[in-house]
């Protein structure tokens, strides 16, 4: 029986599986295959997200990557295998037609984040506004979240760091990823470093906004033009959505 379910179940509820809904998939009485992370979002609060139009994303342009890493003080230590990557450009080629896309991939800020499910210390968490973060005060550096993430969005810091940005503390032995520029959002700004850079360069491939506000630009675009998510089959409901892939 799920420990979260404080109300005792009747024998009938237990046998008919009426209680299964609270605890995910039941494989046998008392054995549950998975328990999704608590959906922290409330319909009345905002849920921040990104929409990326890959048809406008220029091949070879790395403005968003550069802006993100500059904003958050992420720098190379000369070892590409272990250098942190908060956002990266991925080139895709469709085998059948040879059509090529280029698109940025970062933490997708899932509604049901696998990284939060597996974290043994509750360091991985989802904020009420849908941003998925690592609380480095309780991160023990086990890297389960890195293995669980289907987007390879997280990086582990292997070496001692100096000269961090005041709004982006980073340190050896912890895992980190895109924060959706949470410091800007908490200051009341309504844009991220990557979106700003993309707009500045004139590509306008990225839109930031509140997915719960039906009047926001991002919601209207999603409603009018549709979108897809990477690995939609996992049903993680990411807040980062793509058009044109």
């Amino acid at each position, binding site marked *: 029986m799920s420990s979260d379910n404080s109300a005792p179940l009747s024998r009938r509820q237990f046998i008919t599986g009426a209680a299964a809904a609270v605890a995910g998939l039941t494989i046998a009485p008392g054995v549950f295959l998975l328990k999704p992370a608590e959906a922290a979002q409330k319909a009345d609060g905002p849920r921040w997200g990104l929409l990326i139009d890959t048809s406008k994303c220029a091949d070879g342009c790395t403005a968003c990557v550069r802006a993100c890493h500059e904003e958050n003080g992420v*720098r190379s*230590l000369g070892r590409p295998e272990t250098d942190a990557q908060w956002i990266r450009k991925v080139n895709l080629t469709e*085998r059948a037609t040879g059509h090529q896309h280029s698109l940025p991939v970062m933490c997708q800020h899932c509604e049901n984040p696998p990284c939060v499910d597996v974290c043994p210390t509750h360091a991985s968490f989802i*904020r009420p506004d849908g941003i998925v973060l690592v609380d480095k005060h309780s991160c023990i550096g086990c890297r389960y979240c890195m293995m669980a993430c289907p987007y390879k969005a997280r990086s582990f810091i292997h070496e001692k760091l100096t*000269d961090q940005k*005041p709004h982006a503390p980073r340190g050896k032995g912890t895992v980190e990823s895109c924060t959706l520029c949470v410091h800007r959002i908490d200051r009341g700004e309504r844009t991220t470093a990557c979106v700003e850079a993309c707009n500045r360069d004139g590509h306008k491939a990225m839109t930031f906004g509140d997915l719960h506000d039906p009047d926001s630009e991002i919601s209207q675009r999603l409603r009018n033009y549709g979108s897809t998510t990477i690995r939609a089959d996992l049903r993680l409901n990411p807040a980062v959505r793509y058009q044109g892939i």
Partner: protein
Amino acid sequence: MPSVLTRAGLSLPALLAGLVFFALSGCGKVEPPPASLLAEARGDQCVEPTDVMRREHMQILMHERDEAKRYGRRNPDHSFVGCVDCHVSPTANREDPSTHFCMACHEFNAVRMDCFQCHTDRPSDAAPASHRNVDLHESIERHLAAHADASTNAVEVSIP
């Protein structure tokens, strides 16, 4: 023996209480280092009285960090960045604790803290040394160049 104590107007419990009080009177105090070791804060007034801050700054930071981090409810008066911005001089150096407000007191009281393993120890208006800026740009370029090769390029994406 008891008669000696009672004659002196004392009882055993009172003696014990006195001893405990004496022992505890030394606790809960923070010894500030000599003024010459402490850098002046840049603001006019601290967000709380000095004795409160000396005794409870760690509780204040610890208590409110979860609110700030997990719910985005930030109290600008009790922000870590705010402390560093006001108390640490732009020219302070972590290696030389006497120039750094936090380090000076912690060193003096022999209390180890881990804050600056992740948080920056410099105020946000500290002009970054020119070599630092060059470093950052250079390292970002290096970073991009290293990842521009085929190692991160996917061939096909699965769209259900």
